[in-house]
């Protein structure tokens, strides 16, 4: 028998169904599609046109290629340290696609696929990880925040953005990402508690990729799942197969609907695996085995979505090749554009610190500029 949690009591019966069916303490995890690309739980299959699913796969593949290329550019010294998203594309793209344009995305730093869906381009990515703040200058209205490196601090901003939305009566929803490691931070607790107390439209989306740098998930928290932490805050939580595009999409879609209807926040734990290193400066062989990596390779999110599409005759080797070609040339073009971008000027360093530059800062700017002019004669 499924008990109904207090945290789902504001929802309609239909809304509460998914969260009640996968109560975090029941040990159940939402999986719609298995590793072979077969639909194993049709009940929760999201209602998506085929074209959308193809589009999702294309973005995932694009992100995979972009990611792989970025790592090699970094190895060549053409980009700086960067965190790979490889293996986590379904969680990134599936969650982002379940949102609407008016919704906000408050990222951590490892959700490339999600940013691309939200409106970032590879040029932004290259600029940022190539060492320029210009990479966080997204087009007006993108509603995507810059990455947040201090772990889980961004969860507070998501709560605040949602607070402002609710204050104005706007129906926008905020999704924010964090990792399994991030669930140990105080800000995870503070933001979850705040969002629940004020019933704010926030989706706390945890990418549980098994590790926080070298620390295994089972050493990060004694909780059996991260999803179950939701219960303490009085919000619904659910654990999903994070490598299953459909499960991720469905859970995020329900969470967004609930939030938009004024039912408050929820927590989604996407169980996935970081197939690359933590960042380009990290060596995973120090803390995990080749066998483990191999086992997760078989669960890769790209493989199963491709199998699904091929079985439905929506995709084949030719299309795969063509898309890889197109994506590669698009990414190359943007990388060239990045490499041709002028270095920041002295003004660029100073002019965004304040709305109006204080005199003391103007003085520092002039001193630095004069020195450089003198030096360069």
């Amino acid at each position, binding site marked *: 028998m499924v008990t109904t949690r207090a945290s789902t009591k504001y929802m309609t019966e239909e809304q509460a169904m998914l969260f009640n069916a996968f109560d975090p303490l029941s040990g159940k995890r939402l999986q719609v599609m298995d590793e072979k690309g077969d639909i194993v739980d049709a009940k929760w299959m999201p209602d998506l046109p085929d074209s959308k699913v193809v589009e999702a796969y294309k973005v995932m593949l694009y992100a995979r290629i972009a990611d792989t290329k970025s790592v090699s550019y970094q190895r060549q010294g053409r980009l700086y340290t960067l965190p790979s998203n490889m293996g986590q594309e379904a969680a990134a793209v599936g969650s982002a696609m379940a949102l609407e344009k008016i919704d*906000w995305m*408050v990222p951590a730093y490892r959700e490339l696929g999600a940013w691309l869906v939200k409106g970032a381009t590879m040029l932004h990515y290259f600029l940022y990880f190539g060492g320029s*703040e*210009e990479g*966080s*200058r*997204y087009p*007006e209205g993108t509603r995507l*925040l*810059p990455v*947040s490196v*201090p772990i889980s*601090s961004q*969860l*507070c*901003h*998501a*709560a*605040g*953005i*949602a*607070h*402002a*939305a609710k*204050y*104005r009566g706007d129906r926008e929803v905020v999704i924010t990402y964090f990792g399994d490691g991030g669930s140990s931070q*105080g*800000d995870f*607790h*503070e*933001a979850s*508690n*705040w969002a629940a*107390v004020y019933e704010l439209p926030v989706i706390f989306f945890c990418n549980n990729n098994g590790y926080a740098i070298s620390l295994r998930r089972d050493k990060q928290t004694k909780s059996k799942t991260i999803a179950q932490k939701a219960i303490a805050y009085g919000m619904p939580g659910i654990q999903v197969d994070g490598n299953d595009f459909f499960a991720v999409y469905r859970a995020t879609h329900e969470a967004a609907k609930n939030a938009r209807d004024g039912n408050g926040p929820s927590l989604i734990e996407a169980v996935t695996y970081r197939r690359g290193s933590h960042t380009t400066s990290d060596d995973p062989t120090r803390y995990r085995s080749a066998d483990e990596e191999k086992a997760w390779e078989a669960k890769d999110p790209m493989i199963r979505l491709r199998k699904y599409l091929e079985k439905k005759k929506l995709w084949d080797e030719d299309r795969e090749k063509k898309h890889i070609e197109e994506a590669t040339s698009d990414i190359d073009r943007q990388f060239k554009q990045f490499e041709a971008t002028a270095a920041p000027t002295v003004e660029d360093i100073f002019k*965004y*610190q*304040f*709305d*109006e530059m*204080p*005199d*003391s*800062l103007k003085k520092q700017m002039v001193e630095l500029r004069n020195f450089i002019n003198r030096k360069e004669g």
Partner: protein
Amino acid sequence: MAVMNMVQAINSALDVKLADDPSVIVFGEDAGLEGGVFRVTEGLQQKYGEKRVFDTPLAESIIVGSGVGMAINGLRPVCEIQFDGFMYPAFNQIISHAARMRLRSRGTYSVPMVIRAPYGGGIRALEHHSESMEALYAHIPGLKVVIPATPYDAKGLLISAIEDNDPVIFFEPKKIYRAIKQEVPEGEYRIKIGKAAILQEGDQLTVVAYGAMIRTVQQALQKAKKDGLSVELIDLRTIYPMDADTIINSVKKTGRLLVAHEAPRSFGPAAEIIALVNEEAFLHLEAPPARVTGMDTVVPLPKGEDLYFPDADRVYDAIKRTIDF
């Protein structure tokens, strides 16, 4: 005009801004129903409702962190941290986000937020309730730090702080919350952030102070006046950005400088002011710049407090020695 103490003047500033700007919201621990532990927000929830003036969970990081998010999404949050010594749980949010969101996003997002906190010592309080850590905040690129010394200034500066498009740390000297009463207009007026005030003109020495220390210095100056000494007193009002011109012009005239603050000495605001004067008015100096400050120790519990904070005698002594040098 009404006569107000600083608590009432700050309340009045919040009242004025809540009334004329629907994007202003006020929140903090016990700041709603009760009106805050110092009653600074008293009556505002009753007047503007729970949506605009509210109690928060007991959690400083999210008080500031949610404020960052609210500001990004179009509000002007004014949050209260219950005491100066409890800002630290929010430090990450202040330094890593509030202070740099504008720069990091190339101006796409900004954080027009005010963080208010009762500040400073002298009220015989518990541990962690007497701190003067303004240098920590003034050191962080992207923050403005304001410390008023009078009810009139408190109101005008707070209105400016709320209207400012960047984050402002607004420290309220709790020792003088109710000590000074003054005529304060009930309506809206502004005092520019970054502008010091010359409270007394003189030509032998420039004294720079701010917050509750202004009163202490004024007591010392009464004695100095009897001794026939001519001292110029500058109330800094804003720690960052600092009004360099007012200080430099004054020192060029007087040739001597004394800075007084409650904060610990090393790397404190006085060090910055003295460095500034050395850079800009070195050849005008007739005596080494002096400072009267708190100690590089933790603020003592109430029995030892009077030893720690500079009093009028210590200030007078430094005035005399600097002029007699």
